């Protein structure tokens, strides 16, 4: 009896499924494996640090009068154990002082909050620019060079400007506060990857799909909602994650250049002054800023879980 088309289809699907299963390697789940490799990398870094500290020359490695590897004194390169111990001790000798880790955590949360505001503003602006550029070819040629140019301006240069402009801003009840300047600068870094990623994503549907939408006689907005936005998810998610990390870096740098108290940026400057007598202390806010970056990227990564449907066919990492 000849096979019906349905039976053949069933067979084909089974073949595809078994081929997929065969390609997957046995043993540890790929995501878990990635995590293990990450931890191994950290351990290796710690080993290299301690190894060089133990066996490297105290004055560092100097070639032709240029120091190519740092000094290994306890001041320049404290033991990892010293950094860890310092975290649980109080910030200062004062009786009411918090443990260092708590102070750093407070600063981290403060910075994370500002970075989140900057991220939201940056993502909104980035998406709006991408939509504008996608809709009008003229806008793309007019705006895109400026977007790229905007990232060549050093943050240190614009931070005081932003603060000065903000200070002059008075709208009834509303007064511009310093943290807003920081958030604005964070958004200045965050909007860039979003606008570029979204522009590429919105333009990613095949000519085929675009033709199909034209055949269905639907307008730009419906095409955007049903085709371009879903198609852009694969491009948008990495851009959003990049924007999150950029927003954190922008916040920390802007805190330093504006002189805003309460965040990680301020702690980095403050504790760096203590390095002479307390070499473990300056490392705490550095770990804090790494933590903020990881948390920010992780939170944004969660968005991807809800959009899994739109990432089919994308290679999982």
């Amino acid at each position, binding site marked *: 009896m000849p096979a019906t088309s349905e039976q053949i289809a069933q067979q084909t699907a089974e073949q595809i499924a078994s081929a997929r299963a065969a390609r997957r390697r046995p043993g540890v789940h790929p995501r878990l494996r990635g995590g293990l490799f990450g931890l191994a990398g950290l351990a290796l870094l710690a080993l290299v640090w301690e190894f060089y500290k133990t066996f490297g020359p105290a004055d560092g490695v100097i070639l032709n009068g240029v120091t190519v590897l740092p000094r290994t004194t306890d001041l320049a390169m404290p033991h990892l154990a010293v950094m860890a111990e310092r975290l649980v001790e109080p910030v200062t000798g004062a009786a009411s002082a918090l443990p260092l880790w708590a102070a750093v955590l407070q600063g981290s949360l403060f910075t994370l909050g500002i970075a989140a505001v900057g991220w939201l503003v940056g993502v909104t602006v980035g998406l709006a620019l991408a939509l504008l550029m996608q809709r009008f070819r003229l806008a793309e040629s007019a705006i895109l060079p400026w977007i790229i140019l905007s990232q060549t301006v050093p943050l240190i240069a614009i931070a005081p400007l932003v603060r000065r402009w903000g200070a002059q801003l008075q709208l009834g009840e509303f007064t511009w506060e310093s943290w807003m300047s920081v958030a604005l600068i964070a958004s200045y870094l965050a909007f860039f990857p979003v606008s570029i990623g979204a522009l590429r994503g919105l333009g990613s549907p095949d000519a085929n799909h675009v033709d199909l939408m034209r055949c*269905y006689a639907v307008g730009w907005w419906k095409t955007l909602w049903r*085709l371009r936005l879903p198609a852009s998810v694969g491009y948008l998610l990495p851009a959003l994650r990049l924007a999150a990390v950029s927003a954190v870096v922008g916040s920390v740098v802007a805190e330093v250049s504006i002189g805003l108290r309460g965040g990680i940026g301020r702690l980095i400057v403050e504790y760096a002054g203590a390095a002479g007598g307390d070499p473990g202390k300056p490392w705490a806010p550095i770990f804090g800023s790494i933590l903020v970056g990881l948390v920010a990227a992780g939170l944004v990564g969660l968005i991807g879980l809800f959009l899994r449907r739109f990432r089919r066919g994308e290679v999982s990492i």
Partner: protein
Amino acid sequence: MSTSMTVDVPAVEVHGVTRIFAARKGQGVTALDDVSLTVAPGEFVSLIGPSGCGKSTLLRLVADLDVPTSGSIEVFGKPARQARIDQDYGIAFQQAGLLPWRTVAGNIELPLELHGVGKTARRARAAELIALVGLADFASHYPDQLSGGMQQRVAIARSLAESPSLLLMDEPFGALDEMTRERMQNELVRICAETQAAVVFVTHSIPEAVFLSNRVVVMSPRPGRIRSIVSVGLGEMSGRGEYLREDEGFFHALSHVRELLHGDEGTAAPAGARGVETR
């Protein structure tokens, strides 16, 4: 009965159409030169010819995905643009062009959803079409879980979603292997017999064109022109089956189209072949 839609209104009426693509230097490329063609309601017409003969361009013009440089195109008596806006045709391309984030059912429902058909009606119609193309067990699968042939069947089901009286197909089986291809052709014949839709079918496979069509339009390249139109007298769609591929008339039509494609104009046509006539 309707008085405005008389029996005489053709499904597609192409009249003196020329399409010149602008080139950066000098004269443009003439993709189509003074082409005229009429497709009757319910008729299956294939466009065949070597690359560059403008067969796909002609199809895109009928679909109003492109605009002719001169000449006119009417679909069911309306300008092509109006026919597109009124959704008078369904279309399928060489690439299935399914949205990867939608299931089989979701893809078939897409045109209905875009045009505001209610959820229940959409579901029912999709189920009907999924059964028609023999994918009943795959309604909730995603395109990346399907083979090329299955994806193409979904695309055909999607093109039929709004029960169009005209189907435009641009090499829909071009990317499939020979065996899948013949099976799909058999299914298309069955589907056409059931839906009674007129079809304009672009292909570069001679057996495919002859097997499927009432008429085969043989085109020649540079500039794209209609060389000849062959009526394939292989009978009603509903009566066509696998056995037809062994039929003598099928072979006659096959060699006739082949000679038209390869040979010079005029000398190729063997007179009096059964079931074959040149218009």
